[in-house]
């Protein structure tokens, strides 16, 4: 064994290195686990007053999670705290002598009687003592914190294995390393005791490696074919992939998800180049890429002139392919996979997509909602209705009508690929395969593309369907899922969303807004409900279904506008308060609000609107407010002026609103500010005389109504409204 070396201990701070060794953690979980672990450490070490602003670095790989904290306090600071005891009256007897209560209190706090003092509390006078709580040394505190922080990592699914205490973790924990300034921090977790030992690569490294400090940790592990830090793995992969591609004069088919996956699949990633028979290039690129990416985790390579090249890049868990066996092994596996894909393609072409329709009746979509056969019926029914609720701004409504048969054809064939061999083998290609087969079988490009795109967008960064038919088909598919699942009570809760309804709702929002479709969500949902009751007549569903689905969509819309388009939450709230049935209109209003809220007049006006709303809310029950103000009842110039200005602004902004020039309209409305300010400066709304008072309230209510059609300004947080409420 190598001699124990101790880092020179800095006067006030200690460096902590922790490593948990584990059997292979699923790659997709590691990054998040390291982050959660960091948050727990941060929380507990701060609470224990050990952290004092020191950074915490955590990172992970397939077989280890590592934390490094460069400057931890070696012990907790002592804390002096004041504790109260018995009432003063109970602490001394009539003669002023301490009672047993006072003695007992002093003794229990470890102080002398004479050190007790009196504090005044609302309940009276009490005895108090000043107690010094001695800080504990860091190792003692860490022995409690480290196991807790490990156990609080929220894994998606945990397991048991034979170990003392029946621990649960993502995979069996095999070693624990914890060193504070060269000394082992002793603690227990998962039936193991901590030590200063780590392990190298499964097949290339040593199995027992003593570690003395963090500086040495990375280098020693690297010598044992482990790159502990994902940053290093990432750089190595990036470097090797691009140099191998460049050497072939090829380009890597971009795939950030795959890249991240291989970073966390390997302890010592190395890129190797492989090749396949160019004859396989006759298969569609999507299929080849999917086989390489999803099944083998290979990067596809493209020719500079476009199109795939008969090569791939694999990232292996080794330092090098000593005898070319890795390359030939990976090539052989890919050959078999491609041969399967070719077999499926040829087998599937023996019948046409429409021939699969009958078989959809025996494929369950959802137990209560029935088969995919029924789903297709609902889709077609919904696709018949949907175009009537939609007018795409950039093309006349008529052109949608023209495409009705096209949309129906796409809906009819949309799910036919589900029973093909290809999709049964490569389920992630649903839709794509249908689109490819449709094209190969002579369907129009519109139909083929719509089928291909029907599941888009799959996430916030995925492309939208390429054409209007695809957009409508995708909306119909998602809307049917939402309405159907809500109808049978399969409503997402917490992390449980088996039908990915959140994604479906977010997809609808993105398509409507980004493809710039004018559509009434309520009408569309109503049509989906009608299709459901038409096709599944026996299904009983709740009466509030439409509202439930709308609320769910509104929720996703809120998320989308805040997270994706960077709107402030109050903008979103203000614009949605006056309606979100037409999402495109909502988006335009919100954008206008974002621009105008920064202009000089807007914040005070918003504050004034908030005030108006408060006044109206308070008086609504008590007052009978006329429908419109009566100019004859105005007592002061300021109310007459406001009434006049409001009328003028209403007229001038109406045309702008009509033309959806909301920003311009908002600028006009903001110009009301001086009139509003003067009104509030001079006028007492709640006047003594009831008719005058009611008339002023009517003026304000009209003002609020007239100018709250773009957004409810009173929701906007301004400096004056953001002040804490009393």
């Amino acid at each position, binding site marked *: 064994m190598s001699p124990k070396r101790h880092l020179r201990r800095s006067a006030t701070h200690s460096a902590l290195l922790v490593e948990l060794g584990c*059997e*292979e953690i*699923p*790659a*997709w979980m590691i990054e998040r686990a390291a982050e959660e672990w960091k948050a727990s450490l941060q929380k507990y070490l701060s609470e224990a007053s050990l952290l004092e602003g020191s950074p915490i670095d955590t990172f992970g790989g*397939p077989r280890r999670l590592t934390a490094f904290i460069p400057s931890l306090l070696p012990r907790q600071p002592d804390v002096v705290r004041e504790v109260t005891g018995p009432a003063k009256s109970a602490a001394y007897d009539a003669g002023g002598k301490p009672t047993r209560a006072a003695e007992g209190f002093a003794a229990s706090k470890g102080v002398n009687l004479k050190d007790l003092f009196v504090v005044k509390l609302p309940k009276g006078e009490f005895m108090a003592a000043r107690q010094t709580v001695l800080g504990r040394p860091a190792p003692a505190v860490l022995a409690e914190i480290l196991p807790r922080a490990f156990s609080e990592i929220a894994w998606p*699914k945990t*397991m*048991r*294995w*034979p*170990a003392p205490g*029946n621990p649960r973790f993502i*995979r*069996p924990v*095999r070693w624990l390393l914890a060193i504070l300034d060269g000394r082992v921090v002793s603690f227990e977790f998962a039936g193991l005791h901590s030590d200063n030992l780590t392990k190298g690569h*499964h*097949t*290339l490294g040593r*199995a027992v490696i003593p570690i003395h400090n963090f500086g040495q940790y990375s280098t020693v592990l690297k010598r044992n074919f482990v790159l502990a830090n994902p940053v290093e793995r990432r750089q190595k992969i990036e470097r090797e992939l691009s140099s191998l591609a460049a050497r072939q004069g090829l380009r890597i088919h971009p795939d950030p998800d795959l890249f991240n996956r291989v970073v966390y*699949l*390997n302890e010592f990633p190395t890129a190797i180049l492989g090749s396949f028979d160019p004859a396989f290039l006759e298969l569609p690129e999507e299929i080849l890429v999917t086989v390489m990416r999803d099944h*083998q985790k290979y990067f596809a390579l493209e020719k500079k002139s476009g199109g795939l090249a008969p090569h791939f890049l*694999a990232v*292996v*868990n*080794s330092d090098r*392919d*000593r*005898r070319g*066996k*890795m390359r*030939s*092994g*990976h090539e*052989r*596996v*890919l*050959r*078999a996979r491609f*041969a*399967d894909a070719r*077999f499926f393609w040829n087998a599937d072409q023996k019948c046409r997509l429409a021939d699969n329709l009958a078989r959809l009746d*025996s*494929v*369950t979509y959802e*137990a209560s909602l029935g*088969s995919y056969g029924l789903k297709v019926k609902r889709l077609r029914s919904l696709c018949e209705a949907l175009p009537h609720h939609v007018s795409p701004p950039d093309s006349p409504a008529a052109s949608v009508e023209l495409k009705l048969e096209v949309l129906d054809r796409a809906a009819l064939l949309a799910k036919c690929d589900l029973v093909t061999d290809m999709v049964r083998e490569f389920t992630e290609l649903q839709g794509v395969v249908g689109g490819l087969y449709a094209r190969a079988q002579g369907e129009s490009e519109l139909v083929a593309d719509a089928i291909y795109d029907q599941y888009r967008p799959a996430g916030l960064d995925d492309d939208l369907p390429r054409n209007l038919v695809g957009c409508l088909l995708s909306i119909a598919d998602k809307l049917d899922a939402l309405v159907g699942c809500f109808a049978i009570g399969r409503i997402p809760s917490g992390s449980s969303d088996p039908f990915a309804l959140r994604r479906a709702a977010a997809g609808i929002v993105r398509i409507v807004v980004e493809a710039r479709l004018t559509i009434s969500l309520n009408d569309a949902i109503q049509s989906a409900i009608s299709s459901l009751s038409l096709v599944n007549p026996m299904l009983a569903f709740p009466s509030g279904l439409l509202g439930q689905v709308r609320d769910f969509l509104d929720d996703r819309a809120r998320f989308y506008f805040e997270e994706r388009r960077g709107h402030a939450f109050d903008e979103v709230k203000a614009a949605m308060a006056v309606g979100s049935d037409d999402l495109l209109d909502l988006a335009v209003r919100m954008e206008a609000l974002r621009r105008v809220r920064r202009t000089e007049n807007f914040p005070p006006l918003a504050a004034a609107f908030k005030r108006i709303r408060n006044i109206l809310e308070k008086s609504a029950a008590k007052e009978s407010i006329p429908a419109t103000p009566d100019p004859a009842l105005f007592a002061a110039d300021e109310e007459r002026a406001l009434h006049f200005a409001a009328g003028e602004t209403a007229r001038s902004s109406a045309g702008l609103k009509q033309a959806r020039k909301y920003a311009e309209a908002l600028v006009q409305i903001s110009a009301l500010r001086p009139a509003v300010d003067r009104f509030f400066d001079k006028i007492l709304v709640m006047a003594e005389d009831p008719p005058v008072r009611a008339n002023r309230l009517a003026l304000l209510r009209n003002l609020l109504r007239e100018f709250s059609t773009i957004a409810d300004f009173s929701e906007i947080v301004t400096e004056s409204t953001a002040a804490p409420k009393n």
Partner: protein
Amino acid sequence: MKLSPPTLQDLLFRLQQFWSARGCLIGQPYDVEVGAGTMHPETFLRVLGPEPYRVAYIQPSRRPADGRYGENPNRLYKHLQLQVILKPSPSDAQELYLASLAAIGVPLREHDVRFEEDNWESPTLGAWGIGWQVLLDGLEITQFTYFQQCGGLDLDPVSVELTYGLERIAAFLQGVDNVFDIRWSADVLYRRVRWPEEQQFSAYSFEYADPQRIRQMFDLSEAEAKSLLDGYDQSAEADRPRYPVLAAYDLCLKCSHLFNLLDSRGVISVTERAALIARVRTLACRAAAAYVEQNRLRSRETE
């Protein structure tokens, strides 16, 4: 030193020798049709209860729907698994497994070995576990599972199950692309041993099996298993240790295979499918519970 790649039978010998040397009993294949080595009582029943056990055995596994008439280079109606059960799972299970690869002639430093997430589940057996598929240069060669539940019962202690896909490993070691080109022995190919069987059982599974009679056989086997299990529940405690629970489990296995046959004939609708699986699972769970109780009674007797 250059070794010629092992034949299939060399591979079987070496793996059994390897595990025998690590304290495993070398079992024999079970004589009822099974879809996976897990269904062999030496796994399904032995992992239940507290008694430590180590066993390794070869199990031919029949998957009627995977049959390809012997025409697909990778898919088979029946393939060979080597199944290892280590109960309780030792802390060096992964190292032992890697050592077994070295023992069959895989120089680990020259290959890309990886453990990729793959959680195994058998709804018909009420069994599931957590683990990986082991990839050797991208080829899935082993299922590595920490058994969590079996027959609906939480396992304590947890066993580790290693299932080697023998044809794949042999093809890999011998560098052949087609499973039928594997050398079984020095002078006999896999094709000669197995091809007619692949062809005929594929034909049977996809064309000849009579769905109605298969259904009847399923119902009969189920009824027989049920009546045995009902009888167990009604029997006096003193009669239980010798009660034929193992026979009920055999009948449950028959149901499972008959279900697979119906499935390959494509005569099961989705809802019926779920219902049939649930029927087999019920038998499996009842047999498991009875087996555990029997063992408890038996160990009480010997105390």
